[in-house]
């Protein structure tokens, strides 16, 4: 199959990127030497970068952003006809349970916000709330894969990988897609690195996981005992020999690219540690994020680092709040009050600090900030000494801010107790389509040919949620 044949067969519906994807897979551009070089979006992007605050474990919408006075009224009553297999523990289903937290109205938009977010409540006019999210699994890792890749099974590329594949990177000294996980030894999200895997896309598009302790990425420092001048001389010799070799093989583009990659790597040795060093930030910035407060310092550091990375051209950053399941993340099966109050305390000021900082620097307009996890939680209690809430695939809340999103709006709604998304239901595909849209990518055109099929992040569905666009 040659290019002309390919174009003919592909028909008129393909954009330039889809074509490039097709060609990549078939290696017709076999020597596409730089898979991360910036690529043109499909249309004008609203956001240049994304920071996704991943509220890991499934945050309870009815205890955070989706205020349900009816739940207060019916507190303690059984929920009629409730399917006990909705959540994870069919044998621990309790009655309806009101939120243990108070709610108050905030901002010009008058949004009801749980008292566990005193700092974030000041930014509601920047946020677009989506209350009608729903997903396909009541179980962590399928739901995590769903929200990250659009498929409940493992093995598919995640949103960050699609973004890196579609747009490339603006800064070759740093990875295009960075992931941070819990630094307090509470583990990785369920499914581990598969949540930021590239699936069948070339592995270069996978998320670069920053080690929460020690050196965040591998091989950033010269071998022990080697001074900079010595490494420079070494690289000079390498380049000289490689260029001579290239002279004998002038047609091979990848040889030249590899020569260049050593120069990039050399620069990255300086640029990356510089980006990672949040202590270079002025004191007041650090303190706005909450870096001096022990209960949130770890998340503050990650949020501040996210800003520094995005500032330097990193395309996609994901920060996981919390580690594995149960009390190690927002997975409040027991003691929803203690669990959510604790994780809110860890994240409230840092995220608020991030929003304020991005806004101050004029970066918020082109940085899409996303808050959300893999599913919501049930309005009924999960029975325990201190009651909790079980998984709810039928309803969850996301908010987005900046990056082309209209502030202070609410889209979609759950029923009066927050059990099911009922108004303007939003599928995970819709969320993904919207994120890609804000990045300037058409989710129907961003495809990759793998084993005979053109894959999309949104499979055969997805629609952009237009009412929340600025």
């Amino acid at each position, binding site marked *: 199959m040659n290019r002309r044949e390919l174009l003919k067969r592909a028909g008129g519906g393909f954009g330039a990127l889809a074509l490039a994807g097709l060609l990549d897979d078939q290696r017709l551009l076999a020597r596409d030497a730089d898979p991360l070089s910036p690529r043109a979006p499909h249309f004008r992007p609203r956001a240049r970068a994304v920071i996704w605050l991943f509220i890991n474990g499934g945050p309870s919408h009815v205890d955070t952003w989706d205020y349900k006075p009816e739940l207060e009224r019916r507190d303690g009553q059984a929920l009629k006809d409730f399917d006990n297999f909705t959540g*994870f523990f069919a044998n621990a289903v309790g009655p309806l349970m009101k939120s243990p937290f108070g709610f108050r109205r905030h901002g010009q938009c008058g949004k009801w916000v749980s008292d566990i977010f005193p700092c974030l409540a000041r930014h509601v006019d920047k946020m677009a709330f989506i209350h009608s999210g729903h997903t396909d699994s009541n179980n962590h890792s399928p739901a995590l894969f769903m929200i990250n890749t659009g498929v409940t099974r493992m093995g598919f590329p995640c949103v960050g990988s699609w973004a890196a594949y579609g747009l490339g990177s603006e800064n070759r000294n740093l990875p295009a897609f960075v992931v941070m996980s819990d630094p307090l030894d509470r583990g990785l999200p369920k499914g581990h690195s598969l949540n930021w895997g590239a699936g069948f896309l070339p592995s270069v598009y*996978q998320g670069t996981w920053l080690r929460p302790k020690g050196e965040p990425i*591998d091989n950033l420092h*010269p071998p022990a005992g*080697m001074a900079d001048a010595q490494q420079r001389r070494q690289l000079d010799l390498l380049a000289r020999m490689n260029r001579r070799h290239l002279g004998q093989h002038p047609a091979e583009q990848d040889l030249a690219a590899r020569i260049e990659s050593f120069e990039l790597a050399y620069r990255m040795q300086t640029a990356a540690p510089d980006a990672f060093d949040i202590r270079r930030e002025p004191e007041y910035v650090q303190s706005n994020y909450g870096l001096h407060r022990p209960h949130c310092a770890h998340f503050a550091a990650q949020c501040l680092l996210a800003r520094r990375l995005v500032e330097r051209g990193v395309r996609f950053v994901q920060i996981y709040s919390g580690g594995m399941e149960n009390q190690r993340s927002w997975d409040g099966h027991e003691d929803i009050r203690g669990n959510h109050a604790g994780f809110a305390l860890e994240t409230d000021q840092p995220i608020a600090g991030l929003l304020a900082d991005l806004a101050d620097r004029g970066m918020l307009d082109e940085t899409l900030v996303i808050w959300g996890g893999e599913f919501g939680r049930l309005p009924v209690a999960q029975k325990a000494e201190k009651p909790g809430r079980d998984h709810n695939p039928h309803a969850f809340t996301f908010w987005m801010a900046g990056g082309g999103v209209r502030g202070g709006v609410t889209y979609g709604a759950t029923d009066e107790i927050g059990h099911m998304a009922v108004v303007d239901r939003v599928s995970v595909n819709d969320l993904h389509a919207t994120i890609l849209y804000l990045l300037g990518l058409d989710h129907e055109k961003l495809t990759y040919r793998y*084993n005979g*099929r053109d894959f999309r992040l949104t499979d055969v569905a997805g629609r952009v949620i237009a009412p929340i666009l600025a």
Partner: protein
Amino acid sequence: VSLLLSILLTPQQSDFWSFQRLRRPDPPAVRDERWARTPIDRFVLSKLEAKDLTPSPPADRRTLIRRAAFDLTGLPPTPEEVDAFVSDPDPAAYEKLIDRLLASPRHGERWARHWLDVARFAESHGFEHDYDRPHAYHYRDFVIRALNQDLPFDRFVRWQLAGDEEAPEEPLAMMATGFLGAGVFPTQLTEREFERARYDEMDDMLATTGTAFLGLTIGCARCHDHKFDPIGARDYYRMLAAFTSTIRSEVEVVLNRAEHDAQTAEWRKAQEPLVRARSDFESARLPARLTSWEATAPDIPEPGWEILDLREFTSAGGAEFKKREDGSLLIGGANPNFDTYTIVAATRQKKITAVRVEALADPSMVGGGPGRAANGNFCLTDLKITAASLDGAGEPADLRLTNAKATFEQKGLPVANVIDDQLRSGWAVDPQFGKNHAAVFEIEGDAGFESGTLLTFRLVHKCNTGHNIGRPRLSVTSASRPVPIELAGPPGPAFDALRTPAARRSPEQVAALLDWYKRRDPEWIRLDRDVREHLRQAPRPKTAVVMVCSEGVPPMKHHADDRGYPHSYPETYVLRRGDPTQKSGVAELGFLPVLTNGDGGWEAPGARTSMRRTALARWITDPQHGAGHLLARVIVNRLWQHHFGSGIVATPSDFGAQGARPTHPELLDWLACELIDRGWSLKHLHRLMMTSAAYRQGSASRGRESAADDQNLLLWRFAPRRLESESIRDAILSVSGLLDSTMLGPGTLDENSRRRSIYFTVKRSKLVPMMVTFDLPEPLVSIGRRAATTVTPQALFLMNGPQVRAAAEAMAKRTGEGPAADRIARAVRLALGRAPTPEELEEAVAFVRDQAAGYGAEFPALADYCQVLLGLNEFITLD
């Protein structure tokens, strides 16, 4: 409706090039007869000549040996091998080289990796916990060994699909079935996800089968008829039915069956006279010796324990009982939290003074037991015994137990708890695991009936979850109180016999008495010891626990079992839109109509298994009536792709309408015929491809050809390419002398390992970073072709990676003593298989001098130089 009907094949679809049966084409005529060394070359050259292009001049010998060594073994040739080949005057030197490399065990290690990509091989489940599959590496070893021994490719395929059915005695065939189970599986499931997860699992088996063997995206027909290829959704489910009862299992496989059978036969021959000597003694001499013993014996001893013959036994919790020859019950199957055993036994004894409950050790339990708890413990909570007359007369009576004693009592859990009528307390034996234990309970008043006694025991376990006795044995005695745990005297029937005058003894009594007496006869003891000792020397087979996929085997345990995941369902249904809640009829086993031509008689009668996979395996390898023709085309193309850089079909796993068309269709068919006609020998194909003039061309780009065919589709040169991640790392270890060439066996995740990269454990959530950096794909779905990217982490690894630095230092040491110039020259020869040019040498000497000045020593400077060599494009490029 379309879901229920196999889609109708239009003539156009069955005429599609890849579905057509094979016809062996004649190699075409060419103008330049001298260039063509093999029939392959005629096919290649005729296309070039048609475009008025010319092939490239052959590569020099140094280039050729490097190319062939990396290609066939994934390792560079040593400087000595290069010299020997370059100076070999034999005109067949190159052919000899190929034969030598094909015979090298390194060949299987190299080419297995290509197939492992296709097989989405990994050694963990994936998903949330990514639990290990510690016995999955046998599949990797199967591929290595199969390729090394040139297992015919059709058998290679059949064994992966149905080796457990086709050759269950053959360890490699069992290991091969790991193919089916290599995919991911979610080990944490809610009830709602069970059936869907099972369909996903079977889909993974079928989709990978289709992609790997046939280059067909059968998986696309799960939700609807295939959009582009003639594969109906119904066809999908009919093929899926082949895997209905196929599950992952970990079984013990005998590795040396034939050898062990021979050893066992030998051993039996030696065993026979020993057993005969004992039985001859028993029949010829034992009765007389009993008589003379009786004449001289002192008093009639106290009666001993009579091990009860158990008539009925049931478990309240569904455990399974197996009666052992020694009178014990081995308990297996379900181990419920709290089990109660009800055991009925009969005895002729009329007067019973005590009962004994033994809990025997057995290797089937953790730590040998004697309990079924996770640590080998048990906790007997309560014992109730009812006695009734054997002839049914009179009322059954509950026995009152008293004066309990035991071989050992766990602190706080004494045996007296068993008869305290408390259901919270019991008798346990922590930490005395792995040995036999016994408890004795005396009976208040005597029990027993004139016509014999029927005893019903209820052993209740209620203290601690799963703490059920694993191998109980029950005995009674009429010995006088207090009754000790061990009694040497004759058990009831023998005791009665002893008190009966010899002439009046019944045959049963004689037998019981002889059986008791012989155990104290020194001669019998000696003969018996001979038998037992020989028994201990019985040859044991070499075994390994292997993860296989089969039917009717215990499923591999995992997390989802806690909720009762069924592992498989009795039938596979045709689903609408791939949704298990929308079933429309049972799917009967069937294959793709477009690849089926009449009936090949693939079905086989089932024995232990359904043999459905055998039918699939026979169909897929049958070139006449089944899919064998496509199978051959696809594997030929995979081999071609790895040798020539790109396949004759550029999409190696898609031979359907959406895939690329072959650049040399006749050549592909000719090679496929050649494969089948030569007994499916892959090594034959390797040899054929690599000895062709097309393969031996130089790699330099040439203006005219490049302008006419910049992608080298017509093969006017050898396409240069970057080595794969495994070869890069293995080459670094090899030239630095660090390579540990231990073959096969369990892998490792240790990045500092020095074994070949194929022996890295493939844990899905922890892929070895340096491998991924150089484009090792994620093992989630079948990968027919890897990307070859150039990114900065690769450079960082070569500049700063501790393993690279360690190799550079080892390599510097390896260059020996002497002046820097000599050591540099040696390093270049190690890395590149050639001498340095004068310019390179001069430059290197200056570099080492400058670096050494900074370090104040020459060694680190030499190491710096070696590291430069390991980073060279020339080092990691195959040309």
